[in-house]
């Protein structure tokens, strides 16, 4: 019984850890390529969950919703980049921060107005309801699906960034924007694409989370902090680092939840503080 509980919490930790990695990678791409602090990342995560809910209400198909919700978030991302962030590239981090913070307030309040300030729940698709017997413990099918899906998405992001031409341009953008522009690449299109991609990843993470944790307008607030933790530990643009950091805080959170549930969110930030105390430069030494 005790080992069964421990085992399922370990699995929970892996599943949430991969979701954290996904959030971290999205934020890492935005922060790295555009060189802006994106305080709207948590609100975009929440929006992904709510769009999933609405598309399911409208067409009744989970899989279509899982595809459309992140695209909707990505579309909003294009608008935000074009109308808000582009005029601010030369303005300094303080104004960029204020813009994204203002946008996160607008998105969160927009969710309250359009949907509801009260939390809602979302069932997994019929195929993924119930659990499977893993021998040691009985585990919900949907969480296993999330674990696999998030891992595949992280792998897909790695393939895109490491193996495709566009991914190479994006990595080059993180390293040296001026050089990329000098090579004749339209830097503005690169910025828009990177911001949209980061938004899509946040939207997917939100949509995948909805059937596990339910929906509420502030669901992105702790996620924003966690995405920052992942980026601060991993370093910008470091995919492997993001996975390690995501799993580290995900496992720490779910294991602490076993013995001291009240501290399970605060421990994420405590783990970060502890790592930075020993390695101020983060896990992989990028300043």
């Amino acid at each position, binding site marked *: 019984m005790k080992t069964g509980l421990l085992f399922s919490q370990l699995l929970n930790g892996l599943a949430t850890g991969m979701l954290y990695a996904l959030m971290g990678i999205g934020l890492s791409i935005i*922060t790295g390529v555009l*060189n*802006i*602090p994106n*305080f709207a990342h948590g609100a975009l995560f929440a929006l992904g969950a709510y769009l999933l809910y609405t598309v399911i209400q409208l067409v009744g198909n989970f899989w279509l919703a899982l595809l459309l919700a992140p695209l909707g978030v990505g579309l909003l991302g294009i608008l935000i980049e074009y109308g*808000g962030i582009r*005029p*601010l590239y030369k*303005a300094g*981090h*303080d*104004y960029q*921060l*204020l*813009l994204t*913070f*203002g*946008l*996160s*307030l*607008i998105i*969160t*309040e*927009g969710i*309250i*107005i359009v949907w509801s300030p009260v939390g809602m729940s979302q069932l997994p698709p019929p195929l993924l309801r119930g659990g499977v017997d893993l021998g040691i413990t009985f585990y919900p099918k949907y969480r296993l699906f999330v674990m696999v899906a998030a891992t595949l998405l992280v792998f897909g992001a790695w393939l895109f960034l490491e193996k495709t031409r566009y991914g190479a341009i994006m990595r080059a953008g993180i390293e040296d924007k001026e050089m990329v522009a000098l090579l004749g690449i339209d830097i503005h299109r690169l910025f828009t694409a990177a911001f949209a991609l980061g938004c899509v990843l946040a939207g997917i993470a939100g949509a995948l989370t909805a059937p596990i944790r339910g929906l509420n307008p502030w669901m992105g*607030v*702790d996620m*924003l*902090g966690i995405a*920052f*933790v992942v*980026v*601060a530990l991993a370093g*910008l643009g470091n995919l492997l680092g993001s996975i390690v950091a995501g799993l580290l805080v995900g496992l720490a959170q779910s294991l602490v939840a076993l013995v001291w549930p*009240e*501290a399970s*969110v*605060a421990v994420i*930030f*405590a783990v*970060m*503080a502890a790592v*930075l*105390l020993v390695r*101020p*430069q*983060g896990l992989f030494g990028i*300043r």
Partner: protein
Amino acid sequence: MTKAWLAILAAVVLLPLVVRHAIATEIWIFAIFGLGLNLLMGYTGLLSFGQATFFGSAAYVAGYLLKYYGVNVFLALGIGVVVGAVSAAAVGYLCVQRSGLYFIMLTFALNQMFYFTAYQWTTVTGGEDGMPGIPRPSALGLDIHRPLAYYAAVALLFLLSLWIMKRIVESPLGKILQAIRENELRAEALGYNVPRMKLAAFVVGGAYSGLAGVLYAMLFGIVPLESIGFVFSGNVVFATLIGGSGSLYGPVIGSFVFIWLSESVSTMWARWPLLLGVAFVIVVLFFRGGVVEAWARFWAWRAARRAPAAVRIDAPR
């Protein structure tokens, strides 16, 4: 006595005649909070998105001692300043080793750690309900329970804080911090210990936040959970920016604008954070540079309109 100080003194005297005493008091408290952030943001170039950590921590600790141990006002204020400075030293120690965007994200993440601790530690902090019943005991025989008396005490502390901050930014330390803002590498090459100087700025900023936190708790008689939340951290960044982070008096003007704005929109609509968010976006997109610069631009525009026709034709299109 410069013109700025005369204007501030006039504002201190006139403000309680114009607005409710609680709002007038809140303006000066928020200005103290902004002065602390401005030393980091305006003078050192360190964008901290975690000032509520120190504000809230000081408010909780001093509020607890006031409520359960009946400590006197001066001790409570002193403890608040110390808690603000110590928590800032701890947070700053981790943050100043990284720069740029990492620094901003770390201040926010550590703010979240304090927030979730306060949120869950309900036996002490009251969690979501906040910590109510903070008394405002008399000090030196003065009954500061009366709103106007408390206003006067806060305004006096604000003037003292402003004077000390003026001395700090004009001191050698202040000049070194500005050198770090302008060119960190050069400051380091000149032999200054940059991380230690940044930490010093952090600690002073934290002490200011702590003072503001205790005054805030005593003003409303409660420490709300929001006082340690990231929205509070964002609000003080907004107030400082809208006033103009480049000058000593920017946060003071910003505090006026912000408290006035939030007081007026919060009575209009339950979803007022939406309006606040819209205000942030509008300011960022159209009024960068803050009130100080907008004022200058307005007079330049007036002057251009009144200029003789010949001059206007010569002006480039």
